[in-house]
């Protein structure tokens, strides 16, 4: 691995090594650009991942102090854990399930297609599906997405068998084992899925794409890449001309360090990214960096989610095999006749006994709760994930009464469900239950949202500087050499799991940065 000097101001500093940061870093390195990645977490490996839900959670999850507010149930059930995302090399690509779906054309034009919704802060993306298609294709090829590039779909597990039979009996047409960035056959020096059933705990076989063992070693091989782990960035600095000059971070010994940079790209996921921009406030940028619009931290989206579990007379053993290789896409369309704008996906999901106890019905107890646990081997499960409405008041802010281990204000995540989110969730719950009833369920259960894994929108893309934080390339409107490279850029959330789009935007952003550097524009 290369080693760059702290005073080397020719490097690009990328903050975070997940889907956005890890991909961007590799793409830049491949073009001969020198990159320093600062990752807050430690380095794990396929070998060190743990097939144990709580132990793995302690190993991978971002557990630094966070606070919550608002009427969402998470603020009550998991007040200190608004999001289930990772602090480790590879970021949340260690934990993600692998579902890799392209946004639909209309989802880039949410404001135009859905119209004005009271209490929503909708906006069209400044990019179209057509512009992104070539980059989606590159991302799918890079990640080895099934049912693209001639890669066969994954074999369905028992949980999918239940979903498939129920869904087709209800009349759904688009039901299959998904577009998954999990090898159904060996590819890219990684083996095929062994149906471990521990996708969320870090894939021990490496069949699931993660920047940890794809992008990062490839970047390393170029000689242009340096990764510094356990390096928590606390501030981005700028010069009197208003250009960023580098970052200040705490290294693994807790010592403050400064890394100079030509360009800084922030990819800390949609809670840490706006937090860092806000923490970097200065005399020149009093409301935080890149925040002339006042939109930094606003429009926080976390997808409409929920789960349906169903018990059957006979056994299912849903925990066996790929967790999310099963999808019903029929409800992903925009059909206002259902009583809400946007759509949702239904995807297979399973939890082990420890997490089922924690998440089935947080706070629940008594004979009914026990009944569900007693029927664990006879359960099937699905996750419901759909587009939620951006709201100016759903927001990541600095909590000035709580500090983290380095003395910086922790982020507070405020969220209130929009009426559209609630209407969609109710519809999705009903349809999910119908699917399982059609497959013969004896009982069904509506599980409320888990801590958010899809955190989006807090530094959103906009055509006009006053509507958002970054332009169509993820470059901040205010500071030309400061970029946002993660899901914070999303103008709206779409109904699809966001990772493929994050990777797509990162590949495209790398082309733009390289071109701008060549032109000496930044």
């Amino acid at each position: 691995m290369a080693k760059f000097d702290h005073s080397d101001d020719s490097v690009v500093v990328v903050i975070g090594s997940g889907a956005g940061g890890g991909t961007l870093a590799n793409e830049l390195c491949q073009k001969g650009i020198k990159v320093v990645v600062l990752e807050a977490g430690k380095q794990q490996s396929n070998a060190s991942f743990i097939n144990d839900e709580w132990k793995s959670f302690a190993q991978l999850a971002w557990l630094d102090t966070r606070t919550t507010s608002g009427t969402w149930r998470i603020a009550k059930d998991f007040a200190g854990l608004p999001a289930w995302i990772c602090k480790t090399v590879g970021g949340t690509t260690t934990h993600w399930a692998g579902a890799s779906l392209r946004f639909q054309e209309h989802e880039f034009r949410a404001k135009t297609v859905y119209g004005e919704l009271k209490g929503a802060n909708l906006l069209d993306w400044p990019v179209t599906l057509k512009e992104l298609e070539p980059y989606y294709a590159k991302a799918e090829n890079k990640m080895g997405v099934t049912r693209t590039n001639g890669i066969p779909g994954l074999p369905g597990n028992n949980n999918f068998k239940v979903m498939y039979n129920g869904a087709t009996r209800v009349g759904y047409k688009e039901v299959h084992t998904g577009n998954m960035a999990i090898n159904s056959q060996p590819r890219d020096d990684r083996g095929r899925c062994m149906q471990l059933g521990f996708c969320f705990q870090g894939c021990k076989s490496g069949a699931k794409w993660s920047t940890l063992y794809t992008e990062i070693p490839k970047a390393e091989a170029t000689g242009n890449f340096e990764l510094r782990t356990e390096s928590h960035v606390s501030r981005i600095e700028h010069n009197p001309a208003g250009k960023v000059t580098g970052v200040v971070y705490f290294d693994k010994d807790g010592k403050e360090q400064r890394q100079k940079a030509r360009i800084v790209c922030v990819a800390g996921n949609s809670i840490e990214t706006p937090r860092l921009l806000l923490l970097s406030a200065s005399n020149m940028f009093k409301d935080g960096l890149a925040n002339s619009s006042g939109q930094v931290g606003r429009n926080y989206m976390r997808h409409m989610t929920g789960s349906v579990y169903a018990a059957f007379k006979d056994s299912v053993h849903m925990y066996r095999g790929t967790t999310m290789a099963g999808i019903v896409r029929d409800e992903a369309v925009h059909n206002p006749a259902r009583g809400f704008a946007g759509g949702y996906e239904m995807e297979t999901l399973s939890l082990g006994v420890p997490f089922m106890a924690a998440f089935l019905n947080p706070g629940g107890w008594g004979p009914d709760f026990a009944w569900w646990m007693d029927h664990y081997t006879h359960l099937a499960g699905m996750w419901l994930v759909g587009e939620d409405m951006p709201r100016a008041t759903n927001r990541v802010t600095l909590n000035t009464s709580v500090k983290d281990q380095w003395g910086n204000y922790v982020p507070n995540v405020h969220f209130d469900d929009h009426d559209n989110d609630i209407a969609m969730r109710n519809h999705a719950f009903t349809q999910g239950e119908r699917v399982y009833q059609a497959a013969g369920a004896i009982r069904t259960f509506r599980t409320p949202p888990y801590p958010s894994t899809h955190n989006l929108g807090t530094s959103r893309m906009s055509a006009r500087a006053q509507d958002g934080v970054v332009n169509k390339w993820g470059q901040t409107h205010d500071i030309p050499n400061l970029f946002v490279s993660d899901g914070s850029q999303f103008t709206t959330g779409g109904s699809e799991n966001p990772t493929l789009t994050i990777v797509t935007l990162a590949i495209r952003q790398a082309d733009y940065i390289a071109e701008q550097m060549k032109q000496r524009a930044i």
Partner: protein
Amino acid sequence: MRVIPIADTSAPAAGSCDEDTGDVRPISLPLARRDFLKGSGLLFGSLATGSLLAGLAPSTAWALELKKLTSAEGAALMAMGRVLYPHEKLPDAVYALLAKDLDAKAAGDAATAKLLSDGTAWLNKSAGGDFARAKAGRRQEIVRSMEGTPFFNTVRGQCITSLYDNDMAYAVFGYPGASWDKGGYITRGFQDLKWLPAPPLEASPKPYMG
């Protein structure tokens, strides 16, 4: 607290897992040696002979020494755990893990010790003396009346990890835990469900087997 697990000698061989009930991991019961006892309380019991767990455990007897809580407090907490999460198939040894974990918290934090001591006193008082021996209906009423209190929240919250994240619970609920060391489920029943027709190949292609 000294919990001395007895080395397991009866773990099933890797190949002998039962795919229908789920593979079963080695069981370690909490065991304290009587001659070392210096703590405040002692909980003990045995697994029902002939039960699933008894067949897997090296010994059916278990004992747990408490560091801070009294035996009576431990017994009340175990009984409260059974009201909150009533699983007929889970033996007392699992509910003893709840007492063990709460005792550890009490030993490390005076405020928690007081919370648990006051809470169990309230349980016993409400039951007219001994909560653990009160009628089932009465125990439920008492626990329900405490819902939302810090004591209730502490005990209920602890139940989630104490009762459901241990080898005995895994075995009872049929959850095999780790699969990596057994090669995953690619050849061990990930699509063995027979009571529904198999999806067509375009929806669910055959697994790649080399």
